[in-house]
């Protein structure tokens, strides 16, 4: 009864309402993100679909539960203190009793956090070890990932293929466990490989090889992007990981292993590819194109996107991109090459044959 009466007094109810609203504001985003799975976002860290991401998710949930409990307890005590011990109108003006401290209390609120820290540390150390020190099984796919300003190069030494920007891996479920191990290198500055639903991020640092692994449990497309600032177009260095059934993956590998298709429809463009010096940066296996500065284009048409996931791979977009890369990704390393509209159409016609 006493409490109810008190809540009717203006400052109390106002302050307590404000404080409750504040608590709601603080917790709502955490709650919203943790309760919903991929519908909210294709890059939700709380919608794991790969063993390392699941391990991280479990320890994260544990940390969230502990911190949420601490939050509720301390928040309530603080709220209680400022409401209960407020100066009331009409009270005598004397100072409250002076209390200088209490050693028992200090010991209590030292030991309790120490115990929490030790528990958190021990459970965390296990997860670190499990994820970081996992040894690759013999059937694992090995991929060397090279970060470039501002695109991704993927080399599959087991299959002798090189592709760009779209990583294909076999699905890894109970029937066939085929994790993919990524050896992370950089060709220029620091980058970071982050596909939230598959694993936490690991940096690509020049002259400092790192590794990480993923084993998607479902087929499908997983998105992400570079997570270490790497220069002008850091924002448009997107990641796409295609998890495929073993049969689809093998078919994809087989296609990538072929040299470029030689199609008469692309003859004119193929000559321009040399005269316009495209070959100096781009490889098209089976032709004079051997450059290694830009993405390998041997099977360009097998990709869904261009410019590191920025645009859908359509003839129109290819023309826009080649005409002026600056308009799409200002600061990208692809130069503007002077060419007529006819030449542009011919080059794109040639690229269209590279299936």
């Amino acid at each position: 009864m006493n409490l109810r009466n008190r809540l009717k007094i203006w400052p109390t109810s106002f302050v307590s309402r404000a404080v409750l609203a504040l608590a709601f504001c603080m917790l709502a985003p955490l709650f919203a993100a943790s309760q919903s799975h991929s519908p909210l976002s294709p890059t939700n860290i709380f919608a794991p679909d790969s063993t390392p991401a699941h391990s991280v998710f479990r320890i994260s949930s544990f940390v969230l539960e502990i911190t949420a409990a601490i939050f509720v307890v301390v928040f309530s005590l603080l709220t209680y203190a400022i409401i209960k011990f407020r100066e009331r109108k009409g009270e005598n003006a004397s100072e409250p009793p002076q209390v200088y401290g209490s050693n028992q209390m200090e010991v209590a609120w030292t030991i309790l956090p120490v115990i929490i820290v030790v528990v958190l540390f021990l459970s965390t150390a296990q997860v670190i070890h499990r994820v970081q020190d996992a040894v690759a099984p013999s059937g694992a796919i090995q991929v060397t990932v090279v970060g470039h300003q501002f695109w991704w190069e993927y080399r599959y030494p087991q299959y002798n293929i090189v592709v760009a920007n779209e990583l294909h891996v076999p699905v890894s479920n109970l029937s066939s466990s085929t994790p993919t191990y990524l050896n992370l290198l950089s060709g220029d500055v620091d980058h970071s490989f982050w596909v939230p639903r598959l694993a936490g991020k690991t940096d690509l640092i020049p002259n400092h090889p790192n590794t990480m692994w993923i084993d998607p449990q479902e087929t499908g497309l997983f998105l992400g992007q570079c997570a270490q600032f790497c220069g002008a177009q850091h924002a448009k260095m997107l990641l796409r990981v295609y998890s495929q059934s073993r049969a689809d993956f093998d078919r994809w590998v087989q296609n990538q292993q072929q040299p470029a298709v030689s199609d008469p429809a692309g003859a004119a463009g193929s000559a321009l590819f040399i005269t316009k010096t495209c070959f100096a940066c781009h490889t098209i296996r089976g032709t004079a194109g051997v450059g290694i500065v830009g993405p390998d284009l041997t099977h360009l048409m097998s990709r869904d996107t261009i410019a590191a996931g920025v645009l859908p791979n359509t003839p129109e977009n290819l023309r826009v991109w080649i005409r002026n890369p600056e308009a799409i990704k200002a600061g990208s390393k692809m130069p503007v090459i002077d060419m007529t509209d006819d030449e542009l159409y011919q080059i794109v016609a040639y690229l269209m044959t590279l299936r």
Partner: protein
Amino acid sequence: MASESISLPVPRESSRSVVLDWLFTVDHKKIGLMYIVYALLFLVVMGIEAMFMRIQLSRPDNSFLSAETFNRLFTMHGTTGVFFVAMPILVGFGNYFVPLMIGARDMAFPRLNAFSFWITAFAGFLLYASFLAGGPLRQVGSAPDVGWFAYAPLTATAFSAGHSTDFWTLSILIAGIGSIGGAINMIATVLCLRCPGMTLNRMPLFAWMNLVMGGLILVTISPLTAAQIMLMIDRYLSGHFFDPSAGGSAVLWMHFFWIFGHPEVYVLIIPSFAFISEIIPVFSRKAIFGYPAMVAATTSIGFVSLGVWAHHMYTVGMPSYGNAFFVFTTMLVAVPTGIKIFNWMATIWGGKVRFATPMLFCIGFLFQFLMAGLTGIMLADAPFDWQLGNSYFVVAHFHYVIVGGILFSIFAAFYYWYPKMTGRMLSEKLGKWHFWIFVIGFHLTFDTMHAPGLLGMPRRIYTYPADRGWGAWNLVSTVGAFVQAIGTLIFVFNMIYSYFKGPLAGNDPWDAWTLEWSTTSPPPEYNFAVEPSVRSRRPLWDIKHPQDPDWKYE
């Protein structure tokens, strides 16, 4: 006519002498005020930079700013905020109030004090000169665009042409000299100039915390300065410290930077604890709870903070043992930090809380710092950090610390000590408007900012695709930023208006207990007409309660 021609030169000469007085002053109060005003100027600048970035991020695929401009803005925003807003404003308050609180006439080395301020001020203007002189005249960049931690090898001449990075390096180097000068001065002042009776055990927590801050600056600015010199050697004398293509190490830069960068957070938050530790007792009408525990917690935070830096580097491929070690040390910081929060709460407990504006900001600080500490524990957890690191969750976390914690405590300090510095009270009415609008804006911006991080949004991207589901969160953040800007304008107006029209403060408007309230507002140049002598931690309490003085219980 004749009288006019005679009187004309007089005001000219006096205004000139006012300027010269400020230029050549070695008075710790004037230097403190210059630090504060200088920092407020840059606070407005960095706020405007933030608004531009928020507008750009308010919707997906926005084209309000170019990638280049955005990258410069976040680099300048971060660098300005740490080196030319937070540090000088906190040093300014320390400069002004530590000598007053310990009953000293001035800082230990007044000329070094003036030198430290002017060299720091020069560094800030040098950084902003990059907009003009960084190279736009020769079409090679302008302001720095490498991010405030400027990871190698992005800073190498191969990736950063022109002089934008040089402006960044030099201004950090020069600001570091100022910080080290200030830190030496602070340590010497606190250790050598305390008035009779003021043992270390009776020194206000404010002075204790500034002492620890000074110690931390000495230890942490040195590696930062060394790293800047190494970077310049790399850029101009063909050195290879951080050049991986010649056997140097990009990771080495990270270690150098973060052995500075993490303790730097404590360099900023410890003086902010100092404000809170002085203001909460006065407005709760109780002595600080657990003074010895507070001192112990502060010094242990200082020491532990030197062993946690690599928690910024969980994703760079350290061995699992290394990662586990830094998880432990980082989480350990939670223990002394928790002790502080509990002691502040225990100070309020059993008191009579007055909700004046300084106290409102302190209460905001307590709740927000609690939240910031807890998201800090999430980030300390290496596996969780593999997901959260370098995402907007981190941006939300450290803005919770810096805005929700440090800036709120700075606002509290302004409302509390402005009467002492100017002799006039700030308007309570405007202060409450400022508080509530700023609280709403702060939570709109930074609570929602956690969400896009959890949904996979990395920091430092100038735009993002629409299909990621980040748009709505970012829009709310941007709206909140405008609300904060309105709150800040009220604050600025309040400061200017009250300087001329505010009610006179008198010596001791808050009925407080530390020595600065025993002298006039503003204090005379010599601070105290008679050297004070104290017998307890609250000398003014002893005077006000002769029958029940503190020294009987300490």
